[in-house]
């Protein structure tokens, strides 16, 4: 009973606090908060919007899992951004050059993306273990090298042949055959609902994201590697004393994180069909916030990814109707993150104190009981 109350107190408190602060913020900016909430919820009730939200939540979730794998052993992989962009580009190029039966084609693209992401993340891991370079510094620098250097150069090298007269939509790598693109799963969704309108397509990578979430849970809680990972995170010295090889763990965790980051590239690839001149950037950083809010928990991150996606998608409808500025969505994402951190901090302190008191009471009861027996026997 008490445990459930404690575990619910923090998220509920964070939610209530977020709504209160957001309402005040909306009111200060001269918007009607209730009209804004009404618009957001009304929009989210449409099936088409829900498809948008799921499509947006899918890369958020993968990015969060990628970050969380590192976080669980106190390894801060800030480089998910660069890892997925590199993986996106390399997988697009490889996928565009080969022509295979559909399942095989998709599999190869996914494997290439994961290997690319893993290798790129592995650089930071090797730098840390051999030269002692802090992974925060190295991954941030690797982001800059990926976006500003490698990708800019490879984009030009791998530009598909252009016709005499062309438009912007011809830019990018060779378009991948349909056999290499993860199919949409509108059909699966429509078993439960009506037909999805407006040409919206639910990404098939949603299923992969679900599998990754389950895999993450199993890995952490069911395998030796997961145990070593968590042990290294809680107390690296104890883990080392217990026979966990720290260097190998760092490199392995980094590479695993990078491999999941690579899958974000496959989500984008399924949507765009090639590496376009304007790939979506920032998903890697969004994942850090989503992981933080979801407390690195496979289920918690589902909700935080959905929440962030919902707020993102809502910004469009607020902007279009003019009820509130679209920036309010970003503000709400920030508020919910802050209140969650504060709420969990407060909750864990209250819980500690409560446990201490219970323990003290139990001890006191024990002590008095034993003195009684001593007294009785005397």
């Amino acid at each position, binding site marked *: 009973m008490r445990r459930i109350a404690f575990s619910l107190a923090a998220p509920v408190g964070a939610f209530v606090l977020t709504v209160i602060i957001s309402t005040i913020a909306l009111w200060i900016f001269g918007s009607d908060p209730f009209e804004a909430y009404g618009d957001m919820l009304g929009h989210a*009730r*449409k*099936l*088409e919007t*829900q*498809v*948008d939200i*799921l499509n*947006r*939540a899918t890369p958020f979730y993968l990015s969060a899992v990628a970050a969380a794998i590192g976080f669980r052993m106190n390894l801060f992989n800030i480089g998910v951004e660069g890892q997925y962009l590199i993986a996106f580009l390399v997988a697009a190029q490889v996928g565009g050059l080969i022509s295979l039966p559909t399942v095989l084609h998709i599999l190869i693209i996914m494997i290439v993306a994961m290997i690319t992401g893993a290798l790129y993340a592995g650089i930071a891991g090797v730098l840390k273990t051999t030269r002692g370079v802090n992974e925060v510094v190295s991954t941030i620098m690797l982001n800059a090298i990926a976006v500003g250097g490698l990708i*800019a150069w490879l*984009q*030009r090298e791998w*530009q598909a042949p252009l*016709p005499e*007269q*062309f*438009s*912007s*939509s011809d*830019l*990018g790598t060779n378009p991948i055959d349909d056999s290499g693109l993860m199919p949409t799963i509108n059909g699966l*969704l429509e078993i*439960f*609902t*009506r*037909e999805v*309108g*407006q*040409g919206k397509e*639910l990404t098939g990578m*949603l299923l992969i994201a*679900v599998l990754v*979430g*389950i895999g993450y*849970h*199993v890995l952490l*809680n*069911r395998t030796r590697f997961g145990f070593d990972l968590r042990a290294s995170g809680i107390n690296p010295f104890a883990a080392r004393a217990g026979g966990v090889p720290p260097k190998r763990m760092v490199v392995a965790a980094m590479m695993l994180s990078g491999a999941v980051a690579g899958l974000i590239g496959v989500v984008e690839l399924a949507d765009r069909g090639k590496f376009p*001149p*304007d790939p*979506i*950037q*920032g*998903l890697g950083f969004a994942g850090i916030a989503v992981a933080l809010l979801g407390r690195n928990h*496979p*289920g918690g991150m*589902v*909700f935080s990814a*959905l929440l962030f996606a919902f707020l*993102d*998608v809502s*910004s*469009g*409808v607020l*902007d*279009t*109707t*003019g009820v509130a500025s*679209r920036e309010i969505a970003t503000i709400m994402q920030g508020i919910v993150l802050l209140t969650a951190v504060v709420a969990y901090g407060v909750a864990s302190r209250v819980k500690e104190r409560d446990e201490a008191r219970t323990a003290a009471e139990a001890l006191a009861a024990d002590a008095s009981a034993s003195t009684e027996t001593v007294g009785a026997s005397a």
Partner: protein
Amino acid sequence: MKKPLRLLLALLAALALLATACGSDSVSDAVDSASDAASDAVDAVDDAMDDDEDAMDDEDAMADDEDAMADDAMADSDTSVGLVYDIGGRGDLSFNDSAAAGLERADAELGIPFGEASPNDDGSNRAELLQLAADSNDIVVGVGFLFAGDAVAVAAENPDTNFAVIDDAMIDFGTGEPLASNAAGLTFAEEQGSFLVGAAAALKSETGQIGFIGGVCCFGLIEKFEAGFIAGAQAVNPDIEIVSEYITEAPDFDGFNQPDRAQVIATTMYEDGADVIYHAAGGAGNGMFQAAKDFSEDNGSKVWGIGVDSDQYETIGSVDPSLQEYVLTSMLKRVDVAVFEILKAQQNGTFSAGNTVYDLSVDGVGYSTSGGYVDDIADQLEAFKASIVAGDITVPTVPGE
């Protein structure tokens, strides 16, 4: 016992992804749209009614829904527009602000109400915004060629709404056909405006040497500026020496955002003897004006820069007034005119799909006179303009033709 339970919970949580999508919708389906409810009723009493609508399946219900929405849009107003800016929205002193000016003029002069929106910072929701704008407007305008792909897709789903994209022709170059029957591409005869500033450069040059800096080469747009500029300069002085340089090559679009590299290129050109340089490099162009100022101050001989897109005497002046005196003129690309004209066409029922080019004859391009530095050659420039409009001069769109 505990572990499997938690695994089960995690699974359930993951499946909640799908559940949220399904659960709430069956409710909204039932209560939200009257036409859905009506079609359900038709379903139920299908046998009793002897009309042709025997197979009112979901697809038909959807179509009905769309029809109803379209009817609503027709019924309640004449024309309304939803405009989606490029990333950043209003306040960029350039492209977006120019589009906003056209929107406001259409509101004031034609009484066309407007809604506006701008994408997330990562540009991930362009298609969503076009769809939202299409839900409640008769015409949707996307500002910038990055909307082209999404506009084609959204236009196909909203056949009763018209779409317009700035800076993309929206035609299939292979067949010459529009990419969608309800989508227009609004492009500009940049070569004609560039011709006039090229003429101005040649008329103002004392060294007989001028320069051109392009932001990004090889994707077909910036070459139009270069070709017009060269043709205009040679029309004044066939022996003029023109040096051209691009900052980056497509698909690397960073050239539009690298004022430092524009500054280095411009400084070299000035040092080699050029005294007027025209840039078609977006935000990078500021570096050229800085180079003009530095060179002039160091050498005591005044050199010029020519701006692009908007009146840079005004836009640069609002950032750094000390650069204003080096802005000879600017090649104007009147996005506001294009937006206004397409809205007017929509209101008059003369909207047509495919490419519309805004040229000198409709003042879609031109040159600015702020600062008064081209007042002494205004007569010659106006004469060139008249010949181009009359068709006596055909301006090339590819350098060297």
